Each structure stands twice: as structure tokens, then as C-alpha cells.
């Protein structure tokens, strides 16, 4: 279990996160909030990259005091190493930890993502959507039990984004893990998450914590979620304006 107890973060005198209390256990959690609210900062606090100014983060009861390895992290920018092939990028965890590469598993994952033909391609030869899939597979190869995804589809156009969302939803059970995902797309949050956390404008506070329980997670169901979409849109719109007026 991941727990934030009274976490505040101030950077250069600017309050970014204010007294955040939160518990994350299983399932897929989406975080939405206005631009610049402090979403990436929240992830960095969890990862131990940014120390909270006050309050505490604990992962499985252990307080976080610096960068640790409890999370499989997918950064906002895919950050593939351009001099490594697709397969080598996916196996980065093994490379960095001097472990033998699980070639068979890489092959399986490539197939799952429809990338079998691209195993020895360089990142520069891939489209944006392919790169994001590779970055996601790299995250899958990280054995940590909890995933942190920072706007995994932020840089993509609507269609590519849609396909990758469908792909994530259809991911085999054994590849799924407890996940915290930051997104700025309301539909994406509704479509993928079991729980949606809405953050206020900076400094980030939790202004809504909404459970999503679809009978069947597909785009037909998503089309029925207009009221939830409208509710979230209004919440965020108010926060964005609060930010603009500040």
C-alpha cells in the first residue's frame, strides 16, 4: 500500500502541493487536474525524487527518503535511448541491473504490442504511437509491483491515442498491475480508470475522489458517460479559471 500523509511541497517558495492525504492500493487510478497543478510533482514525490516539505510518503509501510525502486515509472516524455534498439530499450531494466535479458519475454511482449517486426528498429524509425508502446513495454519489464504513468499518451494525436487506450484496456490480465496514471484527458480517465482523483489548481489539493465501475469497459459504454464527463469538465474548468485569475 502507498500512503501520503499530510504531504506538502514547496519549490522555490512556491507551494505546489498542499496537505495531500491519499491511499493507493490496487486497481487503476487516474489523476486529472489543471495544467501546472502539480501532477508530475506528485509522481516525483512518490518516486522519492522530490522530498516533501512536510508530511510523509510510505510505500508498504516503509517511509520514502530518496529515489527507490518500488515503482515501475513511465515518464511524461517516453525517454527511449536513441542508440538502443526497440528490444534493448524494452530490456533496459535488465541492462541497468546487470541481469540476463529475458529474451523470450521481450519477444512475447513485442507480439502483444504488435511490434514483432520492429524488434531491431531504432526509436527514430518509429512513429509516436509505437514509441509510447515501447516505453510502456519497458515499464512492464520493470518487476516493481506498482506502475506510475505520467501522461503516457500526452504527445499523441487523438486517433493514435484512442488505439493505445483500446490496447491498454485489452491488455491480458497477467500484464496488468496496480497503476497510478496522470492524464489531462477526461475521456481517457473515465475509459481506463477504476478511480479518478481530481486535483485542484496549484497548490494541488484533492477536490474529488470518484470510483468508476463499468459493467463492460468499451467505447460504447464510454459514450454513455457524458454526465460523468460533464461533472469532471465543470470541476476542472472552475479550477483552470481559478488558476487563470490568480
Amino acid at each position: 500500500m502507498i500512503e501520503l500523509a499530510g504531504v506538502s511541497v514547496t519549490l522555490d517558495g512556491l507551494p505546489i502541493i498542499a496537505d495531500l492525504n491519499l491511499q493507493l492500493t490496487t486497481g487503476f487510478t487516474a489523476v486529472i487536474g489543471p495544467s501546472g497543478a502539480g501532477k508530475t510533482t506528485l509522481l516525483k514525490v512518490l518516486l522519492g525524487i522530490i522530498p516533501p516539505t512536510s508530511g510523509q510518503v510510505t510505500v508498504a509501510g516503509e517511509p520514502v527518503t530518496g529515489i527507490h525502486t518500488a515503482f515501475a515509472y513511465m515518464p511524461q516524455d517516453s525517454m527511449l535511448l536513441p542508440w538502443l534498439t526497440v528490444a534493448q530499450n524494452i530490456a533496459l531494466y535488465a541492462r541497468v541491473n546487470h541481469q540476463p535479458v529475458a529474451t523470450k519475454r521481450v519477444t512475447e511482449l513485442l507480439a502483444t504490442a504488435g511490434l514483432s517486426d520492429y524488434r531491431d528498429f531504432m526509436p527514430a524509425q518509429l512513429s509516436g504511437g509505437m514509441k509510447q508502446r515501447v516505453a510502456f513495454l519497458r515499464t512492464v519489464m520493470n518487476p516493481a509491483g506498482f506502475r506510475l504513468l505520467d501522461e503516457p499518451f500526452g504527445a499523441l494525436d487523438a486517433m493514435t491515442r484512442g488505439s493505445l487506450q483500446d490496447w491498454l484496456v485489452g491488455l491480458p490480465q497477467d500484464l496488468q498491475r496496480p497503476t497510478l496514471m496522470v492524464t489531462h484527458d477526461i475521456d481517457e480517465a473515465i475509459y481506463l480508470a477504476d478511480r479518478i482523483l481530481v486535483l485542484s489548481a496549484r497548490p494541488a489539493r484533492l477536490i474529488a475522489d470518484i470510483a468508476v465501475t463499468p459493467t463492460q469497459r468499451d467505447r460504447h459504454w464510454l459514450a454513455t458517460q457524458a454526465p460523468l464527463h460533464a461533472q469532471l469538465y465543470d470541476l476542472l474548468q472552475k479550477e483552470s479559471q481559478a488558476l487563470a485569475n490568480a
Partner: protein
Amino acid sequence: MDVTKKLYPLFSFLVICVIWQALVSGLKVPPYFLPGPLAVGHALVADGGVLWHHALTTFYESAVGLVIASVVALITGLILDAWRWLYNFIYPLLVISQTLPVMVLGPLLILWFGFDLTPKVILVVLMSFFPIVVALVAALQDVPEEQIQFLQTMGASRLEVYRTLKLPLGMVGFFSGLKVAATYCVGGAVVGEWLNAESGLGYYMIRAKNGFEIDKVFAAIVWVVVLSLLFNVLAGWLARGYHWTLTHSK
């Protein structure tokens, strides 16, 4: 297309030679004042064997100096990047070292290190070290903090961060610095030889100059240019070689 591009400078070189020769012949410029390209060409051929012998010496000194500068710059660059407080102390001194005119250092180096290869190699190192270390450190410090932290969340040690991320990115800077250094380094060796040597293009030049044979001085300059370009091309190959091994590792 690419071949044509490489022919452009050759063409402009030819144009310059023609104009130069026309001026020298037309104005009857005396050879001890300014030789024409034909006279230089003649000197290049007539003294071909001798020049080749001296060019080898200069090549050797430059190569040794460049290798030493590369190794020392690589180590220094990594150290300056790894310990930032050291960087604050040492970097300004490196900048200052660049303002020292090589010509003034030369005689002092000979006084301190004698007549053999050492002072020439040191001059080459002094000219080559700075551009390499500057480009390397800049590239290392350009590596986004986010990428380093990302690797650390995978459990990468400091060493592993260097091996996996910082070194490959830093080497891009290293090689661009090396290309610059390669262009300048031959000059360092020549200055050293000019001050004192038994052989080398600088040695040849000063003797030609003292014998008022400016055509031979120019012939030696042609060789200096050729060697400099050669080193520049070699540095380019090395860079590509490194990139190849990088993209073909494991």
C-alpha cells in the same frame, strides 16, 4: 550530390590559385616576398621525400598529443561532471589556460622539458585538451536530470547512469570537441618544432624561412593543412565508429 559538394572547395581552391599565380606573375612579385602556387607546387614535388619525412614526425607528435589530450580530457570531463564543486574551481582555470599564447609557452616548455618530443606533445595537448573537455562537460551537463532520475527509479547505480546514459550522450560532445582539436593540434606540434627540433614540418619551415625560401615555407604549410584535415577526417571516422559500436552493442 555529396561528391559534388566535396568538389566545391577544390574548385574555389583552384580559382584562388589561378588568381594568385596571375598576380604574382603579373606584378613580378619576388619569390622571397611571396612565391606563386606554381613555385610552391614545384617545392612540394622537389622536396617531396624530405617533406614526407618531416610530415611523419609532425604526424606522430600530433597523434600522440591528441591521444593523450583525449584520454586526459575524457577523465577530467567525467570527474568535473561527477563532482560539480570541483567544476566551479577548475573550469575558470581551464578558460584562463586558453588565453595563454602558445608562442610564449613554447620556449618555457623547452626550458623545462628539453629538446625531445615532450614539449611538442605538451603543446599539442595544451591546444587539444580544452576544446575536448569543454564540449564533453557541456554534453554531460546537458543530460536531462529527468532521464537520470528515471534510470535511478530502475535501481541504476551512479556508475550505471554513466555507462547507460551519460557516457553515450557525453561522447557526442567529446567527438565534436575532438574534431575541433584535430583541426588545431597540428599547429601545436609545428610551433614546438619551430622553436626547436631535429625534424618535423616546423623544423623544416624555420630553416626554409632562415634560408629565405618562402616557397618551401608554403610547401610545408600545405602539408600542415593536409595533416590537419586528415586528423579532422580521422576524428569523424572515430565518432562514427563509436556510434556504430553503440548501436550494435550486445
